[in-house]
């Protein structure tokens, strides 16, 4: 039960995180604007902050009395705190830096000469991004997404703070392992779940490597 829940939460976290991560990575890799270093720092914040702090900040903004959370509840009746969607959001925020870093590196590696060539052939900004830059950076984008997925499987502090530890709703693998360790005689369950956790993480990393290797020849490299 916890395994399936963890996979669903991780998948959603990637879906939530991918578009803004792509935008942030493009901004950091390609655009020159005031506040670029500030954005860079902001993106990396979840990497250096204690996860509990991130969870608490999420509660402040997305909790039922939070700045955004209260509005969401009033307008759409959507509650994020202590829900499965909230767990996904917490994972997305925590893995955001990983995703942006991988995407940014691969976007920076795309020769701007191709972009210039596309310009002289009549392609506008968005057109060029979709037809030239994004496909050429695809391996990095995919690796970023898979790495974020794998990292989401192990997210603990932010999830337990923002989404709590509700079995069947927000109790992902690491939370289940923690709960098992807290209860007497739970070592066997903890060991079993830990083994699954190791397998999933390894699988994720291998998948990322495999995907990158398979994509490269398609891009003519």
């Amino acid at each position: 039960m916890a395994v399936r829940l963890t996979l669903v939460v991780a998948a959603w976290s990637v879906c939530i995180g991918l578009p803004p991560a792509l935008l942030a990575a493009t901004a950091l890799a390609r655009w020159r604007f005031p506040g670029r270093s500030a954005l860079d720092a902001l993106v990396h914040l979840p990497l250096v902050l204690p996860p509990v702090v991130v969870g608490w900040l999420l509660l402040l903004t997305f909790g039922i009395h939070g700045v955004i959370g209260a509005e969401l509840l009033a307008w759409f009746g959507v509650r994020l705190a202590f829900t499965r969607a909230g767990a996904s959001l917490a994972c997305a925020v925590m893995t955001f830096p990983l995703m942006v870093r991988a995407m940014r590196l691969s976007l920076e590696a795309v020769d701007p000469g191709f972009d210039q060539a596309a310009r002289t052939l009549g392609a506008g900004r968005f057109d060029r991004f979709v037809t030239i830059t994004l496909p050429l950076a695809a391996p990095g984008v995919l690796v970023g997404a898979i790495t974020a997925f794998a990292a989401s499987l192990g997210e603990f502090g932010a999830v337990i703070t923002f989404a709590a530890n509700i079995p069947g709703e927000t109790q992902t693998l690491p939370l289940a392992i923690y709960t098992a360790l807290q209860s007497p005689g739970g070592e066997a369950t903890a060991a079993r779940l830990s083994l699954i956790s190791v397998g999933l993480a390894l699988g994720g990393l291998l998948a990322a490597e495999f995907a990158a290797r398979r994509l490269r020849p398609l891009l003519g490299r």
Partner: protein
Amino acid sequence: MTLSLAFRHAFPGLALDIAFDAPTPGTTVLFGPSGAGKSTAAAVVAGLLRPLRGRVAIDGTVLADSDSGRFLPPERRRVGLVFQEARLFPHISVLGNLRYGLRRAPADTPQRIELAQVIDLLGLAALLARRPGTLSGGERQRVAIGRALLSQPRLLVMDEPLASLDAPRKAEILPYLARLKTTLALPILYITHALEEVSRLADTLVLIEAGRSLAAGPLADIVSRGDLPLAARDDAAAILFLRVTAHDPARRLTCLQADGLMLLVPLLASPPGTALRVRVPAREVILATEIPGGISVHNILPGEVRAVTEDAARHAALVEVALGSASALLARVTPDAVARLCLGPGAPVLALVKSMAVEVLV
């Protein structure tokens, strides 16, 4: 109709001030040493670089003008650019690359260049399904030229398209470029530092040196001017535009003619009527004041000395000889010969040109 470019720009260590007007359609070649600012001129025309001041106009359409603040971005200029290193999109096939510009071109262009025509003209039929990564340098450059042509440009700019290729690859592509020039009535701006490409392709020649345009004008005029750096080169030569008029298979000679000028060269395969250009190296031209007898030279061309330039360092003199109304030859002789024959501006003279010394270019 004209292609007109004038701009000033400053890079650390190089101030650029380039200006010229060239008739269109036709091929305008920017010629000069590396680092002289030629590629910058290409970037300015294509819109990839916005100069400090400047104006770019083609056939009456102003693409950029710093005085009025007009600046069309590259994607709206319809200037096809062929880069030195091809820059084919590595993730799509050759056909996909060719279609990239075609799909984005306005549908209502007059004299539309068709895909089939480009494939035929550049010999791309066998390459269409391949990925750019599997092509040779020469093939890649042909595809890049085709891709630029299919974007239906009003001007095709080629920035040293052959510079990164070895000699056999260059020889492979040059005939395609010459064909392109004659088949399509498209203005071309061609950038190079190789004199051979100039002789073969240029209609209008613009000399660029240290960020400035030294001179601009019809090819034959610029190459035969003794006061310009081209004439000071070891390989200085005159270019003549001629037409095949007759073949003499028995003597194994071909007769070429242009406005009162006749030249015999070793037998050619081109049919009578073919227009071609020949290169006559200055070193190979002999000057005389009377017709010598018993001599192997076929071509004894009467002319008039236009100017004499002394090259003191080399103990040589360069004599410009006007032939007929529009042509000119260059002869590099010793200053002593100039003095013995009393060669000065206006003096009648005979130019002796060995048939074997004439290089037929196209």
